[in-house]
């Protein structure tokens, strides 16, 4: 097998700060080489360095990149432009922002072909349509004149792949190509990439943070951390015999072997949701008449028992977050009831509701937007205590209370006077948890609390949530799109699709023996890690 790309001793730095530290690897003809690492490890920087698209402030301090015996760093910019797109192509994480919204998708693909191949107009169009066929877009002739906003996320990513393939590159760089997509769509795109790679004998540099995708896609793997490559191995040996301690812990975290202690099911229901419907009116015209409804939540019934966790699983737009907000009475409910300790929250006035605001709290997905950047950590946590009248009343005692809370979520007590921007994502998520805990709630709605976090941090946060549940007997409504964490956190699971619950039951039943077609599809689509103990790895044939 010939070698397409060789990176030798590449170091990249900003001022005197080394962002990449002497990394070396090679990519062979027709293989998928996966670069794995947590955020900030330098994966994307490596890909930008290969494309010579590094921002001006970042400079290459040493090393070389050879594309088929040509050194990329010595080429003039005009030559490099020919290589970009023609020999190395790239797909990005966000298909929404990578496409120009005012050009039809056909034109966007055609533009690349015109620049690099110099074909005639008719030939270009033919080529575009054949590319659309290759990436399995339906009705390619018709879609040629569509605009990006008319396509779904998965379809956009297919168009991006078509653009990347347009000039038959030797190397395709895929930078987290499926992170922004739903599980089922992700599976489709991955299958497509694999198929194209097989058909064309393409080499792919696949950048991802998801170990399960690596197991499914890659031929060889390199693990990055702090700008260094810690380990390189064949995919099989990588998962069966990880060498470096960091890789081992990363794999362990990805497996997430936290045992969910089975609690007895004979407890009273804390929260009962019956036939809940939330419709959003669609208003049109000058007088804003209501012409129809978006049925965000359409007749949902479930209950959560004391000290237990219900996982609400579904893809984006299935209405799971809306349920969370409805329970908190943050949005008006069209129909149905939400009973908390047998009292219907919907009929309560704002004043009477305040008692229950204390008992139901929420943790958010994005730790960066969940905390007001202008308030100190102490004030953030204090806000709920003052508003709901929980805890001590004097400022000094409150500070003490907040400090014990911070210790409880495994942060330092002297963080009280700091501001959110000084903390990492995982720490912020802990502050968010502390804020919810401050008012001693009985139910916490966790709205995708771990999906914005790195693998190792995710495990820590899940462990923390579990510890808190054991200590205080709080119940969780765990909203997630990630099936892999369901068995770890939940006792029961409900699967949502288009505003309805299609299947619910005990986690073991649903995960092992799914009844509904959609649940089966979800479980199939989710990329799985090979089990290390069985020493049997996916042989990469789909």
């Amino acid at each position: 097998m010939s070698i397409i790309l060789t990176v030798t001793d590449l170091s990249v730095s900003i001022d005197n700060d080394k962002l990449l530290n002497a990394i070396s690897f090679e990519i062979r003809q027709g293989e998928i080489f996966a670069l794995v690492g947590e955020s900030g490890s330098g994966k994307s920087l490596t890909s930008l360095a290969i494309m010579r698209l590094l921002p001006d402030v970042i400079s290459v301090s040493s090393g070389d990149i050879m594309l088929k015996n040509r050194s990329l760093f010595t080429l003039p910019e005009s030559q490099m432009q020919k290589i970009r797109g023609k020999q190395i192509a790239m797909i990005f994480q966000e298909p929404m922002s990578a496409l120009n919204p005012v050009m039809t998708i056909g034109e966007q693909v055609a533009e690349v072909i015109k620049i690099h191949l110099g074909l005639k107009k008719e030939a270009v169009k033919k080529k575009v349509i054949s590319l659309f066929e290759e990436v399995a877009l339906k009705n390619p002739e018709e879609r040629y004149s569509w605009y990006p906003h008319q396509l779904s996320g998965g379809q956009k990513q297919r168009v991006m792949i078509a653009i990347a393939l347009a000039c038959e590159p030797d190397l395709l760089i895929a930078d987290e190509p499926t992170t922004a997509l739903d599980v089922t769509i992700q599976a489709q795109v991955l299958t497509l990439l694999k198929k194209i790679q097989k058909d064309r004998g393409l080499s792919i540099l696949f950048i991802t943070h998801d170990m399960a995708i690596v197991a499914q896609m890659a031929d060889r793997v390199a693990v990055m951390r702090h700008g260094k490559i810690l380990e390189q191995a064949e995919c099989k040996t990588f998962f069966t015999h990880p060498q470096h301690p960091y890789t081992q812990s990363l794999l362990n975290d990805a497996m997430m072997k936290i045992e969910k202690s089975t609690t007895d099911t004979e407890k009273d229901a804390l929260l009962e949701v019956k036939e809940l419907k939330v419709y959003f009116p669609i208003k049109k015209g000058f007088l804003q008449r209501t012409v129809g409804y978006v049925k965000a939540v359409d007749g949902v019934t479930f209950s959560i028992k004391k000290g237990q966790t219900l996982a609400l699983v579904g893809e984006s737009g299935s209405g799971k977050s809306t349920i969370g907000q409805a329970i908190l009475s943050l949005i008006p409910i069209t129909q149905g009831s939400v009973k908390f300790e047998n009292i219907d929250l919907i009929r309560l006035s704002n004043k009477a509701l305040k008692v229950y605001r204390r008992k139901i709290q929420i943790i958010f997905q994005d730790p960066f937007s969940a905390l007001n950047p202008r308030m100190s950590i102490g004030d953030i946590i204090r806000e709920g205590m003052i508003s709901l009248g929980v805890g001590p009343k004097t400022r000094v005692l409150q500070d003490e209370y907040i400090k014990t809370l911070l210790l409880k979520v495994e942060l330092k007590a002297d963080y009280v006077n700091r501001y959110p921007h000084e903390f990492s994502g995982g720490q912020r998520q802990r502050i968010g948890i502390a804020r919810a805990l401050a008012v001693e709630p009985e139910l916490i709605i966790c709205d995708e609390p771990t999906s914005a976090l790195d693998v190792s941090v995710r495990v820590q946060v899940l462990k923390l949530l579990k510890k808190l549940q054991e200590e205080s007997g709080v119940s969780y409504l765990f909203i997630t799109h990630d099936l892999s964490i369901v068995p770890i956190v939940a006792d029961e699971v409900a699967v949502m699709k288009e505003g309805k619950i299609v299947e619910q039951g005990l986690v073991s039943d649903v995960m092992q023996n799914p009844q509904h077609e959609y649940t089966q599809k979800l479980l199939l689509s989710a990329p799985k890690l090979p089990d290390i103990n069985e020493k049997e790895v996916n042989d990469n044939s789909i």
Partner: protein
Amino acid sequence: MKLVLLWTDMMVWLLVVSLLIWGWVISRSPQVKKQWHAIFRSGIAMASAIILLFYLLFALLDSVHLRFSSSMQKGQSQHVQYEGEIVSLLDLILSHNIESTERTYSAPFATHEYTKSIVVDEDGVTRQVHIPLKHVTKNDDMVLRSFRVVGLGVLISLVLILCHIVWLGGKNFKGIFKKIWKGKTVLPWRTAYFTVALLVTGLIWMYCMSFEYHVLGTDKVGGDVLYQSFKSIRTGVLIGILTTLIMLPVAVILGVSAGLFGGWVDDVIQYLYTTLSSIPGVLLIAAGVLSMQVMMDNNPTWFETTLERADLRLLFLIIILGVTSWTGLCRLLRAETLKISQIEFVTAAKAFGVGKLTIIRRHIIPNLMHIILISVVLDFSGLVLAEAVLSYVGVGVDPTMHSWGNMINQARLEMAREPMVWWSLFSAFVFMFILVLAANLFSDRIQTVLEPRNKA
């Protein structure tokens, strides 16, 4: 003697007091303090701020108005009669300039009038000559005097700077001095001292020379242009900052409530500002000012002095400028509030049952502060320029009031003369240019530091 508070004086001092209170409030928040520190770390920002401060100082000096008791009636104690004229502190400082009125045009530092006049001399011969100026010392070495005065200016600024260094350094005077000399302090004190020295020396030179000469010449009726330029500072600065004071609460209250409450509140406010911003601004201002003019002409008894009359017209201009200029900021704030109110920390506050007013005060306004600050500083220079344009068109401040716009308006005809009278326009231009440039550079820096998008 009694203190006279004109309407605009009242507002200026109110603004100064509220600025001081605001400064005290933000000095308690370490985050905001850090931001301001970051702003002043740039040499340009520091220099601009000092220049703006000097302008503000002149505006404030000109905003303390006094009325002296008439000397003739001193004997009768029951009724204290006051002179018809109200003077400000600045007028007192520059009183020699008011008194040294010439007959007509004279160029800067000239000893004779600019144009020839017909004079009949002792022999009965009619001749055309440049008549010598009344208030200029003729046999004076200007260069020597300048050197002496500049020396004095440098001395005074050096004393000021040394005082500041001592205050800054305390016991470690030598170390601090070395650091400043090499420009290695965190805040660019070297630039600051340089600016202060330049300004102080320049001003002292101009002031001292104005006793002997007309530094910037005289206008058509012999009035000193330097005095006019200094008096215009108040008008320009007031229009710049007081308009903001009127416009800001309206923009913030309406913008935030439109963004947060939505529904019909949003609709009403949106219709309001779309309507208002679709009426041409100059038209609205002209209509407002002219109707005010008619009203004032019909009620001459309202005002004791011409100054009060001019002041009311200025106030009215400020109000009407404020009414027409809040829409832009309001639109910005509405959009930003919409965005912020969807962010999760606001949802979290709602889940805690926090009231709407508290949410506005604690979560929304602090996150809008950077937009407000940026637009206030940006608007300032725009408003100073707007005054000049409006006065030029004739719907600006009262013609008796000193303003750069009026100076430019008068200079319109002077430019067409042969030989050209250039100094009125030149002085108005330089004074305005320095102010607007400083404000723009300062706002640029504020924008760079406060705009969250620039942080990446």
